[in-house]
């Protein structure tokens, strides 16, 4: 099994005709993801050519794409100016999952989009995230497929490339993954650590979870308590940003130590206090996972 996406995922790509959208649509299709539609306003009626010569219909709007193709998931590669609208449109179109890759969406736009999605019961992952992959089943987003393998580990992370780092090392020692989720580096994200941990807890194939956090906010601290109180499966953690100075935004809009809150130290302590093994460096994650699986 896996979480959030699997063989039944029918994907519509918002922004399919852009540079990133078209490149990654082909990558997702090569991995075997069922891409059933694309949406680019003004380009409805065109076809998008897949890597094997497949013709994917492009629509002007999400409702039409969903009605004509039965899509149940969308991925957003739309530029930041239009991204929040694209997310809202997807949320209103009858699908159940919106994966927002776009970086740079104004946070107040996202506050509105998240509120709207909560009302509609739609899950948003991201924005400013690499998406997710369920090895052997489907990939939605930009994670490089060559580094994953099928197996028993769940991976959840606020970072993109740091996730690749961890996943690559797991795969190299033969530890495949059920699903790898990048939840995004923005302050307001749709799916948080606890949502993913809970899904992994209920996923019968997941035997252990890797949780990769970073400075800023308290999501990791709350997730640590959740692990202790509600999870039977072992969790291994890593926190990036031990050398980050306070008050400075470290790339991700959400990666900032505000006053004295949200430091790596505080998060590592929360992990340790709640029974999560903490890796000192990314290369230690594998060893800790092997230990907890014994």
């Amino acid at each position, binding site marked *: 099994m896996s979480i959030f996406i699997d063989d039944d995922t029918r994907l519509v790509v918002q922004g399919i005709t852009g540079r990133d959208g078209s490149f990654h649509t082909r990558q997702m299709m090569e991995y075997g993801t069922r891409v059933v539609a694309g949406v680019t306003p003004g380009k409805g009626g065109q076809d998008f050519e897949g890597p094997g010569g497949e013709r994917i219909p492009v629509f002007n709007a999400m409702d039409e794409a969903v009605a004509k193709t039965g899509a149940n998931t969308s991925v957003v590669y739309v530029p930041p100016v239009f991204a929040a609208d694209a997310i809202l449109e997807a949320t209103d179109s009858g699908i159940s999952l919106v994966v927002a890759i776009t970086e*740079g969406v*104004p946070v*107040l736009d996202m506050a509105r989009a*998240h509120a709207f999605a909560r009302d509609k019961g739609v899950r948003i992952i991201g924005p400013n995230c690499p998406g997710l992959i369920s090895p052997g089943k489907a990939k939605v987003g930009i994670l490089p497929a060559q580094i994953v393998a099928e197996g028993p580990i769940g991976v959840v992370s606020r970072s993109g*490339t740091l996730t690749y780092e961890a996943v690559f090392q797991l795969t190299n020692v033969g530890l495949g993954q059920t699903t790898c989720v990048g939840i995004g580096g923005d*302050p307001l994200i749709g799916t948080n650590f606890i949502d993913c941990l809970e899904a992994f807890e209920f996923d019968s194939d997941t035997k252990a979870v890797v949780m990769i956090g970073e400075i800023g906010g308290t999501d990791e601290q709350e997730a640590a308590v959740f692990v202790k109180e509600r999870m039977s499966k072992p969790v291994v953690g890593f926190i990036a940003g031990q050398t980050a100075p306070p008050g400075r935004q470290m790339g991700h809009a959400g990666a900032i130590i505000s006053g004295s809150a949200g430091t*790596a130290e505080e998060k590592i302590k929360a992990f340790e206090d709640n029974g999560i093994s903490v890796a000192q460096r990314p290369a230690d994650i594998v060893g800790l996972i092997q230990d907890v699986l014994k």
Partner: protein
Amino acid sequence: MDIHEYQAKERFALSGIPVPPGKIATTADEAEEIAVSYGGAVMVKAQVHSGGRGKAGGVKYCEDAAEARLHASNILGMDIKGLTVEKVLVTPAEEIETEAYVGVLIDRESQAATFMVSPDGGMDIEEVAASTPDRIRKLPVDPRYGLLPHQALWLANFLYEEPSLIRQASSAISQLYESFVESGASMTEINPLITTPEGYIKAIDAKMSIDGNELFRRPDVADMRDLSAEPVSERKAREAGLSYVKLDGNVGCCVNGAGLAMATMDLVKYYGGEPANFLDIGGSSNPDKVVSALEIITSDPKVRVILFNIFGGITRCDDVANGIVEATKRIDIKQPIVIRLTGTNEEIGLKILQEAGFSAFASMDDVVEKAVDLAEG
């Protein structure tokens, strides 16, 4: 993006929040002139992007214009937490009866702009939250409705008992929410919101940070950026679309992705080195970005080695490899470059590097250890 107190007060005034008059001086002469024009006692306040201005001696009460001149000459040029004071705000001194706190920030948990108010103003709100949490009232604002009138009143009720003050505060609170949204802010604060002996409220200090992602649609706010308040290297990075934070070490880091960039810095430290910077070249990088990144890193005289740690996803390894090759042709780089390159289009990228005479490491630990070695040697 942080804006100065005087700019935040301009934003507040646009929404109708009562703020005292004030003018900016860049010389002691100007400060004196402004003080003369107000007559009576004034405050001279350093305008820098830093908290703790008062403790650092950057905020002074002045009986008259002569004293304003004296204090302004001391404060201008003063160093506050590494920032040089270029401007002071000169503003009439207010008689203060009470001090309250009113702030709005983006709260991650409630996923909304959230008010925090306290009748205990004039001190750090983090301290109030830690020592007397019952003295703070919080309210997340539903973005679909905005701040409703009864909610503003509920917040104001927590600050004052006098009906006239409650009415004034309630309207200032609504105006602050409007100012927050219209400015595209991620945080704003009135601390303190005072009451005067005459029974009026006034915002005598103001703070505001703008969400950088809002700037494209708010040119008037974007124009408030103070270029002199930002290191040249950070400005260049911003203009090139790179996230860069200058640090004190000698290992120049060039990484794709914020999380990996932080983890790379941490690993430099783990192996006994000190990172010179945080630098994320971002997604969809084109070779020009890599060239800019190298220019910025090498402009830091402390840098003794340049470390690339690239894990391609949306960033393609061939783009980065082309950028490295191109940059070494365009600019004269004296420091050794060590590279780790893996992920999307890895083979093409490695081939480009090989043909240009670079070798690459396979693991993050290997390349960081090598970089720390070279920086020390």
